[in-house]
């Protein structure tokens, strides 16, 4: 398999105790959901894929993205996007500057501005570029975080309990928005969650850990 995100015999241990093992290929546009109660180390799997695993964990196995082995690549060269349960917008940058941080370099200032405005329009936030992210509502922040990540043109998408901080009404809306865009861009998605609704909404392969 060429395109997509492949986890080959990935095992993560802490102090010699195995936490989880995953061996799975995620095709473009497909969602793999990793379920399990909190504390089984679901997030360490994502940290391993982004290259930010804490030194007290050890991992074996390989991560392949679109045919490249990225197991040992530097975090910023992996082309893997990630969304956390918190929006984690950079508080010192305006909404527009947050998106510009994500947007791949290139193009004139006007073109870049236009792309950012277009991205904001796409999620119903036209004219928000100069706003302070701290003044946005939870749902608005989540949408900005999503667009910031998509503008960096990742080849795979990781979701770390991304909807658990949103209230029920907003949750389904943001969730659909994320999955729709991931499918439209043919991104392989890996989601970790402890929420059965999220897993069902993703509607595809589910791996359950621990418990």
């Amino acid at each position: 398999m060429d395109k997509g995100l492949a986890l080959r015999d990935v095992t993560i241990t802490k102090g010699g105790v195995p936490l989880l093992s995953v061996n799975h290929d995620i095709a473009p546009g497909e969602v793999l959901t990793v379920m399990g109660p909190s504390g089984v180390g679901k997030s360490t799997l994502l940290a391993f894929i982004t290259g930010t695993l804490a030194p007290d964990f050890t991992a074996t196995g390989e991560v392949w993205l679109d045919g490249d082995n990225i197991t040992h690549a530097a975090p910023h060269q992996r082309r893997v996007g990630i969304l956390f349960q918190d929006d984690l917008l950079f508080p010192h940058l305006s909404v527009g500057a947050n998106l510009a941080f994500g947007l791949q370099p290139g193009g004139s200032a006007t073109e870049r501005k236009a792309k950012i405005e277009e991205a904001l329009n796409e999620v119903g936030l036209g004219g928000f570029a100069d706003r302070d992210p701290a003044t946005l509502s939870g749902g608005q922040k989540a949408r900005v975080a999503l667009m910031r990540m998509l503008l960096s043109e990742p080849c795979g998408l990781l979701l770390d309990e991304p909807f658990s901080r949103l209230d029920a009404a907003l949750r389904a809306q943001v969730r659909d928005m994320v999955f729709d865009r991931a499918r439209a861009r043919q991104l392989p998605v890996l989601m970790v969650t402890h929420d059965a609704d999220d897993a069902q909404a993703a509607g595809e392969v589910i791996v359950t850990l621990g418990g």
Partner: protein
Amino acid sequence: MNRRRFLPILPILTLLAMLGPVVAGLWGTLLPAFGHLPAAGLTGPSLDPFRDLFDWAGLPRAMFLSISTGLLATSISLAIVMLITAGWSGTKPFRALERLLSPLLSVPHAAAAFGLAFLIAPSGWVSRLLSPVVTGWDRPPDLLIVQDTWGLTMTAGLIVKEVPFLLLITLAALGQADAQRSVAISQALGYGRVTGWLKTVFPRVYAQIRPPIYVVLAYSMSVVDVAVILGPNTPPSLSVQIVKWMSDPDLAMRLEGAAGALLQLGLVIGALVFWRFGEFAIGRLGARWIASGARGKLDGVVAVGALAAGTICALSVLLGLVVLTIWSFAGFWGFPDAFPDAFTWRNWMRFGPGTLEALGETALIAITVALVALILTIGCLEAEYRFGLSFSQRAVWLLYLPLLIPQTAFLPGLQTLMLSLGADVGRIPVMLAHLVFVLPYVFLSLADPFRAWDSRMGTIAAALRASPNGVLWRVRLPMLLRPILTALAVGLAVSVGQYLATLLIGGGRVATLTTEAVALASGGDRRAIGVYGLMQTGAALVPFALALLIPAVVWRNRKGLRHG
């Protein structure tokens, strides 16, 4: 420059900058103390320097002064801070004290000491305000208050400055001690506020603030500038006498000075060991007190007493600054008038040019040293983050080491060593010596906020393809602007306040506001002292104000960083 190779050596470079001069200085003290000083044509080993030292008639009193001021200043300021925190944390008066903390901390020791002297001397402001109505004095009474034989005023001068320092340290430790809930539980069990706090929170807080307490003890035992201003003269405390010996034109006197420096080191180590045993004893007594189940009948009285003591400390420093200001503008001011006959710019015209020159030297040294310390600190913390290093509790003690070794034990040796190596005294060696004291404070000030930064921000930024340096410069440092500027201000204030390092390593040729101000102590020209003391305070205080102001302006439209 290749960051990848450069960054990992920064922690080593930092340790070298911090501990190198200390080790070299101790070596430079050890040799002459045993009679070896080739520069003066003397070769050892011999015990003559110690024989001379023990022949000095003032020695027992000088040693006693060092020990008594150290133990008294440390235990009294610790007691005040613990009891205020126990009785008042979370209340309105406590928040008022908290707000005063930064300005109180940044007032240099020398300026606070001068202010205290101008307040409580027989001809000081307090006596003037009370005379002649209350006291009946129409001339200053013939009392030895400032520079008293027992060093009590000097001890008080140390206490007023150590209380804000220990309070700051305690506030930082409280966050991790789960204080509020512990006190709530013990109050529900019928314990008074103070007793409940002492029995449940104090042991945890004390374990955390132990290193800075040891620093206060070592510092109070060997302080020079405060002792010159407020301490006794005949004989002076041991550290002041060591500096006198070291400044003697007769090189042979350096041997006696070096022997004294080793003795001072021994005294400090002895006092630290004594304090450690005291901790065990208090711990045993405390365990018994807890087992007794006593609920604390005197809590109210104790709390009020502690608050009064803390308020007196704060007022001493603040009113001291007021009286320095009045003197700096005073025309004729006869006793017992409460205020001068006239206010005038004359003192500022007269001493202004001199202070500006000293301010230039002070600023040049302080800015250079504080920036170097900041860069080394950020480098160390970033190396720790990138390479997943973690410093053990033991490594934390390394940070405190340069603050625990008495200045008078290694600075004279450093000066002697530089002389015998033919190295020139002057500005750059002074900067290196300042760095020894500035680095630990800058590091301690920045480490917690730097480590508390949400590292998921880094993960996100890297996932958005920002390189490690990009994450540092574009995300982490801007987000940490406020703590970075605060750390810089702390570094500047520490450098501005350095007396002994500037005096000894500068060979008397580097004139900063602090050395100039302390030099005025013996002359007793209160107008000159007022001008220099205020300038010294301003040099330390303005950076703190800027550290608050700049982030507020730069991030005025960024709500998420307003309390970060």
